[in-house]
């Protein structure tokens, strides 16, 4: 055991979250990472039994694997998670990388926040593994659709797994579909065959500081983020708002107008829409909006 003081001069330990729905291939990815590990990883998994990590693999690997709750570790601070992660943080100098496998319904973004707080960790982003053959069905599903959308939203990298089950045409449909809500790099893989360095050296996007994004993470409704570098005319904006369909329950956003100074906070409920000056300032020059609707399909309303 290294003395605690040696931590001081050490570099921050990278922290990566692997998310994705059940059956997408998170297990395969973790097994692959372990198999090709050159340095000791701390791997926090949700469910040891279900993971089927080859025990030989763990023995050969000099890191540590800790089984965690198989529940939604993003929703629960039950003893299992608090303690498991606490143990890893207490002996962080043993590891070169911390990898957390989020549960199938967790929002990886919320887990990544831990690394943004903990001074000894460095946020290295969220890999979200998607089952390419099932994704379009899952995203439409009444029970889990919103979870899938939320995971895609949190991804710094999307791994579209089981690509060999798809035709080129189906891949293009999938690409087109995902490009509507995610600018994360996308890789088609088979059984997550991808290099460790590609997965573990991401740059975590900074969390958006704007108040608007907090509502996106609600389970159950469907949200779309609209980004634009451009300012917009305030009259045109109001016209655009008036045309929004009635199934949009909420809208929120920060805007810069061509004809009015400053940053504006837009808030819409089912019945009313308000614009108020946003005094906390914003470095962004353009507009960023979130629309939340009940429809179980992407909201294809082009902003401007």
């Amino acid at each position: 055991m290294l003395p605690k003081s040696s931590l001081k001069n050490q570099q921050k330990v990278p922290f990566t979250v692997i998310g994705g729905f059940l059956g997408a291939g998170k297990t395969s990815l973790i097994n692959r990472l372990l198999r090709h590990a050159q340095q000791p990883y701390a791997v926090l998994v949700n469910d040891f039994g279900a993971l089927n990590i080859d025990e030989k693999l763990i023995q050969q690997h000099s890191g540590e694997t800790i089984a965690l709750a198989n529940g939604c570790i993003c929703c629960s601070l039950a003893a299992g998670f608090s303690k498991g992660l606490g143990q890893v943080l207490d002996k962080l100098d043993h590891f070169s990388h911390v990898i957390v496998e989020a549960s199938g319904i967790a929002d990886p973004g919320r887990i990544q926040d831990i690394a943004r707080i903990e001074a000894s960790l460095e946020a290295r982003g969220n890999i979200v593994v998607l089952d390419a053959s099932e994704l379009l069905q899952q995203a439409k599903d009444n029970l889990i659709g919103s979870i899938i959308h939320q995971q895609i939203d949190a991804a710094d990298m999307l791994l579209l797994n089981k690509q060999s089950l798809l035709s080129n045409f189906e891949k293009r449909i999938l690409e087109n579909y995902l490009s509507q809500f995610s600018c994360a790099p996308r890789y088609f893989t088979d059984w997550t065959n991808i290099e460790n360095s590609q997965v573990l050296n991401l740059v975590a996007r900074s969390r958006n500081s704007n108040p608007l994004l907090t509502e996106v993470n609600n389970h159950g409704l469907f949200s779309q983020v609209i980004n634009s570098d451009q300012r917009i005319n305030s009259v045109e904006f109001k016209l655009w708002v008036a045309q929004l369909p009635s199934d949009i329950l909420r809208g929120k956003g920060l805007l810069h107008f061509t004809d009015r100074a400053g940053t504006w906070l837009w808030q819409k409920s089912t019945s009313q829409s308000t614009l108020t000056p946003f005094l906390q300032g914003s470095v962004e020059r353009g507009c960023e909006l979130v629309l939340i609707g009940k429809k179980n399909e992407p909201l294809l309303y082009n902003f401007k």
Partner: protein
Amino acid sequence: MSNTAKIYVARSIITLNPDCPEVTHVAVSEGKILALGTLQELAGLNLPIDEKFSDKVLMPGFVEAHGHAICGESWRYSYLGFDQQYDPSGNCWPGIVNQQQAISRLQAAQEKLADADMGLIAWHYDPIFWADQKKLLDKHALDLVSKTRPIMVMHASGHIINVNSKLLEMANLDESLHIEGLMRDEQGHLSGELRDLATQFAVLRVLGNPLIGEVDLDILQQYAKLATNVGVTTASELYASFDDDSLSSYRTAAAQKNFSLRLYAAQNAETLSIDQGLEKLQQAQLYSNEKLYLGSCKLIVDGSIQSFTARLSWPGYHNGVANGAWKQAPQKMRQMIREYHRAGVQLHIHVNGDQAIELVLDILEEVLAEYPRADHRHTLQHCQLASEAQFRRIAKLGLCVNLFSNHLYYWADQHCALTVGPSRVKRMNPAASALQHNVPLAIHSDTPVTPLNPLFSAWCAVNRISRSGKVYGKAQRISVLQALHALTLGAAYTLKLDHLVGSIEVGKYADFAVLEEHPLHTDNMAIKDIKVWGTILSGVAHQGVQNVV
């Protein structure tokens, strides 16, 4: 016959025993009911008569079939709830209704902390009921209590934490961070409110993980005291971990002679793989004894209605907010229910919203068709929004329900205005429907979510009156006797303990609640005010300490 054998005489003894619903004398021997009836009927036993309770009313000891031992831990910390509550020593803590009262109570608590940098922890903060919504327990208010020691205030929901500047600093939470749940005030500065996993993980770690639901011997002893004070003789931990330390605490507590409670614990299945879970259950079952019942399993499907995390079917939440959250992916839930059922385990399944109930009914219908099992007694816990059609299926599938009637007092006004609206609030926790459909019915408090107090829970189910005095759902009211049944024998049935406790019958444990008044001869509105002397457990009297007004 052991020397503890004797006859208790009481003003009346409510038995819930169909052969003799009410008697005046009960003979106990070896901790069990030996006989019950009139003095003449019992005279032949030649036992001494104990007249200690001759002016009191006895009934079967209450059974809390869905509680949490953490209520025994929470009284180590400062109570900030809106309603008055009694601690295990019987002290009454008046409700906290504004910022000034909260600050005063925290200051008083701080003076009792020996160490200058020891954390100050408080619980059950419930600001939605405060009249002045501008003066809450934000960072600035907590800094008035101390700027040098960490202060943490847990909300009543258990999902939000407020902290002072010192604790923000110790947990590395500063203004430069832009993360989920790190709340800010109107000026954009940190408010001290923490709403999500990462921030809460950081502060709980600084303070040594308080209030995360672990048990130790002292916590269980405090739980037993709280139980005795309100007439409960069997109580559950429905989210238990069967790790070695916890198991040892349960076993040690139950083995103590003066431990005045039978403990029932259902293993929280979330933290284990199914194989591990089954292995732990088998191990734990070996430790069961007459005061300790281990071996069933708890599953959580959705969240809670008041925090908008329950899964609702159409039309969803009344105020239009997003639907709630699954606690497990539905496919995973199907697998867990199937595997635990196949292994013969009894399941306690947390479902609040009607969509969550529907999912579980679909799963169980399929699983029971494939693996039929007599008398499985799987129980839907909370089950607050089950429709009539769902109750018909619940009955067909042989399920029990354990309803959360206390909601009707504490949150029905909010449920009416915000969560489910004026129509659906009328059938929340539909106890009358359960009985009409012949579904075995229990009623619980989910302590510490609402206080452990079965007579109060009975009052809620009988009257369905909210905090503001409104009646929600007259048609779902049940009689006092039906409510008492649901809180004793009905609750015992859902724990598979109905052959041992829950009614006064020969051969069952001599467990009683000792009341000062007769609940069946009391006005329906006054049931909650009946004073509790204490309990009798295995024939031995335990006096409570909650007679303070």
